[in-house]
């Protein structure tokens, strides 16, 4: 699974690299405008639907979450298997939509609508939009069923004694995410079906020339896709909440507030979608309300950030690579999050909508938030899953390359966007050249950083040293396994949970188990 995902990730990164290359100098070099449109659509569709949305839940949710709550498996293992194949089918459909089978020979004919498929353009373009929509629908189905599976698992299969406020915070993140997957995805699913029918039969639902309303498409699309942003970030925040206490050797500050802020982000996330439509022609009252509501998301997010920082205060901070990634994310996501607040204001958004400013905001939040934390989790749980350890020094170098790269790549875009560089253009005025060139250099740095990181992890997996059972001195249940990697049915015996997830005393974990009987021996 993760193999597939990271393959797609690399494909999408490469497409982005190609776009950056094209944008290095003004004018068309080796890509015309149509190809560029298809390239950013390909990049968006793969990154969003094939990598980021399924990424953390499918990789860590499946492997780590049952271990964390002391379950032998998820509630419906066969359904889980089924969603895996749905995902593969979705990927195959998405890839076939790349190619045009109707014309003479084979040429690339991917959708050129952007990943949002806005009507009416998506209904009129001649590219393979229908296949792409079907792929997104199938992937959505996989996402719904995974969410359903996790919800039932978390409700039913927690170890005896573990109530909701004794769950590790990553499980809270997954739990909030699962509700979004369950309730929001069907809406976009049916919207995509309507768009397909519309394109095929010309009903006119979203086509103003036939009496329909294209803004309705945007509403229906963002009712899902804005919560989907939180669907991406919440499990990532969960990873952060695991890593910070472990590498500060301190109990997490404000456990309940972090847990409940995940839930409230999921809740508030449903009622803010309208801020994507400030320039689409909504009424002023609706705009004002959506803008007002949007600010509320910043509150639980801010609570989380303060809690994390308060956890580190007077902690015994150990700067291993997972912690580095987490700390880097605090910076990059803070930039991404705060610039989000500026474009939640209607006035500023009218100016910045569809510029590089929003592109930079989005990538700081998603690359600097979700993907960075995904990598943090990857380094954190690597010894758990493989039983081996990667080279710590190389891992740190990879982090610094990525961290420098992301800032070089995206920060100039804030400025370019502020001065009016529109997104999704394959050409630009000469005065923007300098920003694009700095970005281009940043892209190369990130690319190198990613390569180093993946090579390091692969090398660690193949012939790394034995990691031991609990290399990070972590406290949560997934580390209390008799072997590393864990045995086939997770815990040999299910423990009784009468402790909080992050109990440290003088920098050492409090709870200890006899791994034969899983009874506490501290």
């Amino acid at each position, binding site marked *: 699974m993760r193999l597939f995902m990271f393959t797609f990730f690399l494909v999408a990164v490469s497409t982005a690299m190609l776009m950056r290359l094209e944008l290095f100098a003004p004018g068309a070099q080796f890509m015309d405008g149509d190809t560029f449109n298809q390239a950013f659509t390909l990049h968006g569709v793969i990154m969003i639907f094939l990598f980021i949305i399924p990424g953390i839940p499918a990789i860590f949710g499946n492997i780590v979450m049952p271990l964390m709550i002391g379950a032998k498996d998820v*509630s419906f293992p066969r359904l889980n298997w089924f969603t895996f194949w749905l995902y593969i089918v979705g990927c195959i459909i998405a890839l076939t939509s790349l190619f045009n089978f109707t014309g003479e020979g084979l040429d690339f004919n991917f959708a050129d609508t952007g990943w949002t498929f806005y009507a009416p353009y998506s209904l009129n373009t001649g590219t393979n939009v229908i296949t792409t929509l079907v792929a997104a629908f199938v992937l959505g189905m996989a996402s719904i069923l995974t969410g359903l599976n996790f919800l039932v698992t978390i409700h039913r299969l927690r170890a005896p004694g573990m109530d909701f406020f004794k769950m590790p915070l990553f499980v809270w993140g997954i739990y909030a995410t699962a509700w979004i997957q369950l309730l929001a995805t069907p809406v976009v699913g049916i919207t995509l079906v309507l768009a397909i029918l519309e394109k095929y039969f*010309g009903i006119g639902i979203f086509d103003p020339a036939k*009496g329909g309303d294209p803004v309705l498409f945007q509403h229906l699309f963002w009712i899902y896709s804005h919560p989907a942003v939180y669907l991406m970030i919440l499990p990532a925040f969960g990873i952060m909440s695991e890593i910070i206490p472990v590498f500060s050797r301190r109990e997490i500050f404000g456990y309940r507030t972090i847990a409940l802020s995940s839930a409230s982000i999921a809740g508030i996330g449903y009622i803010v979608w309208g801020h994507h439509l400030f320039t689409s022609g909504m009424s002023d009252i609706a705009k004002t309300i959506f803008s007002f509501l949007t600010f509320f998301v910043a509150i639980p997010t801010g609570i989380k950030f303060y809690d994390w920082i308060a956890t580190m205060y007077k902690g015994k901070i150990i700067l291993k690579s997972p912690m580095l990634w987490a700390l880097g994310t605090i910076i990059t996501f803070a930039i991404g999050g705060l610039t989000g607040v500026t474009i939640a204001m209607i006035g500023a958004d009218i100016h910045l909508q569809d510029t590089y400013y929003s592109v930079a905001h989005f990538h700081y939040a998603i690359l600097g938030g979700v993907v960075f934390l995904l990598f943090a989790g990857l380094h954190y749980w690597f010894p758990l899953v493989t039983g081996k350890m990667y080279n710590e020094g190389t891992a740190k170098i990879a982090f610094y390359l990525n961290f420098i790269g992301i800032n070089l790549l995206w920060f100039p875009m804030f400025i370019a966007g502020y001065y009016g560089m529109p997104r999704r253009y394959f050409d630009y005025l000469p005065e923007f050249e300098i920003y694009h060139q700095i970005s281009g250099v940043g892209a190369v740095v990130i690319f190198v950083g990613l390569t180093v990181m993946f090579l390091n992890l692969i090398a660690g997996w193949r012939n790394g040293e034995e990691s031991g059972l609990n290399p990070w001195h972590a406290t949560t249940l997934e580390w209390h396994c008799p072997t590393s990697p864990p045995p086939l049915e997770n815990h040999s015996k299910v423990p009784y949970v009468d402790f909080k997830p992050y109990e440290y005393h003088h920098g050492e974990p409090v709870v200890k188990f006899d791994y034969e009987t899983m009874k506490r021996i501290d």
Partner: protein
Amino acid sequence: MGHEYVPEIATSRDGKEYEVQGWQGDFYGGKLGFWLFMLTEVMMFGAMFLTLTYYFTLHHADFINASASLNRYLGGFNTVVLLISALTMGLGLLKMRSGDVKGAKLMIWATILLAIVFLGVKAVEWTAEYNHGVFLGLDALQSGNAHSKAFGEILFFGMYFTMTGLHGFHIIIGIGLMIWLIKRINANKVTPGHHILHWNIALYWDLVHLIWVFVFPYFYMIGAGDVTGGVTHGH
């Protein structure tokens, strides 16, 4: 499933023993999962009803005119058929729980029969509409030609065929599920002591008829007054 599964025991520090809930044979987990799945169906149809409501306010008169041309007798008959089928399905579940496997199977067959009747009536309706030139992809439902209907009517019929089509698709899936259920009962995999599958399929069938209970008035009944619907039009 779950016949030889022995639940594990977790022991707390003071020696108390607690039964561990496994994923095997988790009746309530199975029920919860299916209820959640039903919730996704509600969201899906909910989005379509939202679209429908929105266009009803935009094209009020067109919707009422279009609705008036639907056959309310066939639609009403189908509503009754589906309501009875929900009854037989529920009775089947009651019989299964009280241990009357044979009676339960009979009731499931009755439900399948009623579902087929429903689809048959639906086919008659769609054929009649097709013969009147009203169907997805036909000229009347495309704009910009001599046969085109008004915008609102095109939208109405587009949504009508989409939603009743999707509903019919759910009926077909339901028939498949019920036939599968009967096979499982025959193979002794679904028994009065272990009938989660029966329970969930009954739940599914309830939702399918419930959706129709909303589809029917929204498409068939809004034009039930006279041809103009007896209202003053905003548009």
